């Protein structure tokens, strides 16, 4: 009985591990484009936060404007690079 149970466990797991796969997930290196999109999302999130906190009265106007300008600038740079890379991939 014990041997039977052990054998069942062994064979079951063996089959699961080594059963030939028709397709496996590809391990792709993250592209610059993907990275930039993540960055863009992060900066967008920060900008939304900033806007919200400003409306909640946590920033005086001059702080808010300065910070928003900085972040928007950063976002614009990233968007420009995304656009450039996307144009490149489409062209290719």
């Amino acid at each position, binding site marked *: 009985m014990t041997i039977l149970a052990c054998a069942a466990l062994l064979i079951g797991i063996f089959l699961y591990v080594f059963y030939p796969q028709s397709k496996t997930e590809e391990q792709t290196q993250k592209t610059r484009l993907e990275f930039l999109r993540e960055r863009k999302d992060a900066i*967008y999130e920060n*900008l*939304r936060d900033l*806007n*919200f906190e400003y*409306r909640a009265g946590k920033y005086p106007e001059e702080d808010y404007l300065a910070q928003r300008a*900085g972040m*928007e*600038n*950063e*976002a*614009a*740079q990233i*968007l*420009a690079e995304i656009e450039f890379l996307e144009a490149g991939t489409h062209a290719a």
Partner: protein
Amino acid sequence: MRACQTHVSRIFDRSLLRTWFQLSAACLLLIFMAGAGDTAARYKLLGHQLMCTCGCGQVLLECNHVGCTVSTQEEAELRNALARGDSDQLVLQGFVQKYGPTVLAAPPQSGFNLVAWIAPGLVFLLAMLGTALLIRKWKLHPVAMPPEMAADPHTDAVLAKIRKETEL
């Protein structure tokens, strides 16, 4: 703005000083009161500075080990010592002589054991100092921000898009 800031920081300093003063006054009071306290209070105070040595790892007066003979004996000794009128120092010394230094619930504040008390504060201060230096370094060498985008219609359109997408 600046004047306002210094003014407030002065208030802050003053209130900090006052806090320090109150703190030290409280400490002094504590010391005096510890000397003049009645026997029951001293029993409680000293009983919490000693450990039960039966191996239960509990503070003497909190040992609830059922049938623990060690703690009852220690408690009796403590009561006797207080009844004799021994000073706190003497009582603790007596216990150390009889049961070894592990009977004290905290390391004595002398000799090498002083390190035990100083190290946490010292590490905290050093860490504070390190952080302060780090912040200073950051302020002196800020990371370069991306250059301002040239003002042209395209950039304006991008900025408008960003602003629209990150609205509330």
